[in-house]
């Protein structure tokens, strides 16, 4: 990746925002992260199944919000 000082301010701002989002996600409670992993599974499963890989999406615990 290009050093930050050679990036345009707009790209540098986007990368910094992405980094902040990663840190925010890393700081979430574990149970919320697990719910996000299940959402990732739901997104990835159709793609993987189309490639012939059999995957099982975990059950989401009921009544819990997914952020």
């Amino acid at each position, binding site marked *: 990746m290009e050093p930050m000082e050679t990036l345009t301010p707009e790209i540098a701002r986007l990368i910094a925002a992405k980094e902040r989002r*990663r840190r925010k996600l890393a700081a979430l409670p574990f149970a919320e992260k697990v719910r996000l992993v299940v959402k990732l599974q739901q997104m990835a499963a159709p793609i993987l199944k189309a490639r012939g890989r059999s995957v099982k999406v975990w059950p989401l615990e009921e009544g819990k919000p997914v952020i």
Partner: protein
Amino acid sequence: MQKTLQVLNDLVREGVLSRYAIGGAMGATFYVEPVLTFDLDIFVILPQSVAGLLTLEPLYAALRARAYDEESECVIVEGIPVQFLPAYNDLLVEALNDAREVLYEQTPTQVLRPEHLVAIALQTGRDKDRERVRLLRDEAELDEAYLQNVLKRHGLAGKWNPWKP
């Protein structure tokens, strides 16, 4: 996942497992941003059999008795594919003994420390392990002194050098 962890806790209470802890991608997810995985890796210390052999068979039998089916290398426990990995070397035994006691919702469970997750990934060394080392280095709060001790004890200090922040 809460029900899955409750089953694991029951197995410990019943003496089928001596100890367990969450590792792998879900263990890392405890410390970093959520990582896509379809398996729950559970490291286990098994009670030693009379013959001194370590085998997963009594664990699988206990799960079969509860109507949890095996699928490839996993057992589907409350809808989640769980892969049980016996502690097969000193690093894993230490990692299990030092695992963190945490609460998942209201259910107590154990997660491997991030420093041990780094050491295990360095020891295993696959592409996805290297990615895990990078994530843990960048996002987890690692106790540097503790990590150095673990790496030194298990001959992994050299493998960590290229990763040092």
